[in-house]
């Protein structure tokens, strides 16, 4: 902002590492916390690196990871989705009902559930965009509707889910590959240490998240979350981007429901409810700003691992299991307060409020 003549050099060289750290600071903090917790866990539990423990750690985190990914997609667009939990319940109930019916087969059932997830997200997005209504209220209302539909499909917990489906998603890779390898025993091999759910996670990341993130539509979702007015001025189709964000949320919530189905081998129309608020907590733990525009699933995944690991540490540290929820609460509260450190760096008091 001066009229002095500057001599320009060419592009200032910013070290890529420094840039990476400064852009992903909050995510790195989450991973550091996760690392410390892991080390603590290993210290306390000699059996930590055994196949059963690894598999169960993954299985315990997986539904929450997908729920968190669902919430992340909309938070990036600076929206919020309070129907994540009910959509999980709905897909869990639907899956158990359709499996019991047996008409669609395993793949057909999965596809049907995913389709319903898309539909739920689409409804949210359409109402928010074309009704010009606030996401928090719209998804609060649709949450009630989706819960109702879930209850309609499964008034009481139960239903039939094929064992094979559960094993495919929740066992170890060795167990799944065993029939293929014939005589050779896979127990004790490297495949014993790889949970099937980890493969599922990688698949979802590669087939669902990455294509979305790297598509034009994905870029638009970030653009809208970063500055909606600017995005509109730039010719971004704001409506389409917002709807896409909610559809992605629906897909991820459906995946979470499908995993929950595999884990519990039954349907329960109330099981998903807790994941709404937990998904928000995990997004915040993962360093994604609720104001939108930045963040991603990398932090969310780490955030979702933190809670089960704390549980495990408390267990092995012989802390009264009754204290578990207290510690979980304390950690969540601490994590969200950590974000407040920014107020110390703000020099203009007005900027605190904007």
């Amino acid at each position: 902002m001066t009229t002095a003549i500057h001599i320009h050099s060419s592009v200032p060289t910013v070290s890529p590492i420094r840039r990476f750290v400064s852009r992903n600071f909050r995510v790195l903090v989450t991973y550091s916390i996760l690392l410390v917790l892991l080390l603590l866990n290993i210290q306390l539990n000699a059996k930590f690196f055994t196949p059963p423990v690894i598999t169960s750690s993954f299985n315990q985190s997986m539904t929450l990871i997908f729920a968190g990914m669902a919430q992340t997609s909309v938070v990036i667009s600076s929206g919020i989705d309070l129907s994540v939990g009910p959509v999980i319940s709905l897909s869990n109930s639907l899956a158990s009902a359709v499996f019991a019916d047996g008409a669609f087969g395993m793949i057909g059932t999965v596809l049907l559930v995913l389709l319903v997830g898309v539909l739920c997200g689409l409804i949210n997005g359409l109402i928010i965009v074309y009704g010009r209504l606030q996401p928090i209220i719209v998804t609060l209302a649709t949450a009630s509707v989706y819960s109702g539909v879930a209850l309609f499909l499964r008034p009481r917990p139960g239903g039939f889910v094929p064992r094979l489906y559960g094993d495919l998603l929740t066992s170890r890779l060795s167990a799944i590959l065993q029939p293929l390898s014939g005589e050779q025993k896979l127990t004790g091999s490297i495949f014993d240490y790889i949970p099937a759910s980890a493969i599922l996670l990688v698949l979802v990341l590669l087939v669902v998240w990455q294509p979305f993130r790297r598509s034009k539509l994905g870029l638009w979702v970030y653009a809208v979350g970063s500055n909606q007015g600017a995005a509109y001025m730039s010719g971004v189709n704001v409506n389409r981007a917002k709807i896409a964000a909610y559809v992605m949320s629906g897909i991820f919530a459906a995946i979470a429901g499908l995993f929950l189905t595999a884990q519990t081998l039954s349907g329960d129309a109330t099981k998903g409810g807790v994941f709404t608020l937990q998904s928000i907590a995990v997004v915040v733990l993962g360093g994604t700003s609720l104001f939108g525009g930045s963040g991603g699933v990398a932090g969310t995944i780490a955030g979702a691992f933190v809670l089960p690991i704390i549980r495990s540490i408390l267990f092995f540290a012989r802390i009264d299991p009754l204290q578990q929820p207290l510690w979980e609460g304390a950690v969540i509260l601490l994590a969200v307060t950590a974000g407040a450190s920014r107020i110390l760096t703000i020099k203009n008091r007005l900027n605190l409020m904007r």
Partner: protein
Amino acid sequence: MSGSDNKIAAVEAWDISKHFGGTIALNKASFRCQPGSIHALIGENGAGKSTLIKIFSGVTIPDSGTLQISGQGVIIRSPADAARYGVVPVFQELSLMPHLTVAENIFVTNPPRNRLGLIDRSQLRAQTDRFFSDLGFTHIDPNAMISELPLAQRQLVEIAKALSRIPKVLILDEGTSALSVHDVELVFRVIRRLRDEGCSIIFISHRMSEVEEIADTLTIFRDGQDVGSFAIGSVARDEMVQLMIGRKLEQVFPPKPDPALPAGTPVLEVKNLKWEQTLDDISFSLQKGEILGLGGLDGQGQGELLFALFGLLRGLKGEIHINGEHKQINGPDAATRAGINLALIPEDRKTEGLILPTSVGDNLTLAVLDTLSHFGLVENGKEQSTIQYAVERMQIKTASPRIPVRALSGGNQQKVVIGKWLMTEASVYLLHDPTRGIDVGTKQEIYQLMRTLVDNGASILFFSTELSELVGMCSRVLVLYEGRIFRELKGKDITEENIVSAALGFQSDDEFLMPAAAMEA
């Protein structure tokens, strides 16, 4: 370019009218821009030029009037519509997404994609590199996030972004205000090339020197209408100034009082104020009944100085004395407390000064709610009479104090902001460009009001970007340059030329070359 009048115009507008609430922004304005020309649009703040180009770019929809692009009648309802017709605007930082990289911002609507339909990052980077080297913007890193860039580079990215959309009509609205001379040259080179390729450029700038350097044609706007179009160089400067203001300068301002002020204890005395990189050792004093001007180019620390006095800046060094007493001011509630009694009329009245959806009355009483209350309850009679008093005293033109302040014209809104402080019996008013975007008539009322305030014993610290205001109103003017008080002007020395030369950082009058900011006069 004058010989090309018979050509089909690139953009043509007839009888465009637009009003916002009670303000008429455009009143049957017409405009015509030839292909392959650079057409400057000038006028005072609030003359309607911004509204006109917002209409061209689909941000605002006119109440009435006709638009033509290349001879075709068009209706532009959205920025996307405008882009389809090849009309691409550059507003100040309006279309950048801070969390996206430079490259992503530029190609957000059409990023290069690979066979899978996914964005090809290396291609995106290469495309941006090529584009930037073509433009000469090689000092900008395509992979930097917008939020990581300094203001000037953001503005260049904004311009680059517009150019990437291959405009037929490029609109630059103060698009060069944050740029250094070198960057401005880069931009001008690109613009000239565009023109030679047949593109039209509509150029708005408050730097007259830039206008004269780059433009072929010039249209002047006043009070929502076009009042004249000329080829550059065909009309003398003072004639243009006359067209812009439409009256003699002397008529605008109330007479200044006798310059000899009582030399008692200053109401406000500032000693060695320092803050971050923005305020550098600022010391001055303000006497009772004085209007002290703050001048200089926009962004030299004037806004921060007002913020500092109002207690908004953390880590402020230096001392503030009120009526001779050293005071700690750590927030607006402290600044407005009895014994300090400051009042801030902030830069952006819509977001900082007013609560737009609530009524005129509620806005007027905002700062004195506690004194109007008894046991915490607002006393209706007292409140009504206070509002009544303020509305009359400020001559606020409103059907009723109960209508939302949003519905008032800009000038009347500003009167509400000032009126809010009447009741606190503020002793020092801190004014941040209070007449921006206000019609000429109301401006005059505000000048008169400022004079009345000081006649009744208040003092005013007056930051204005309009030189004529400083000349017409102030007993002294402090010109800031890069956070320092560069020069203090008094009495007869307060002239636009002196303010401009100090604003540009020239040490003495000999170096005074071209009054770049003199346009506002």
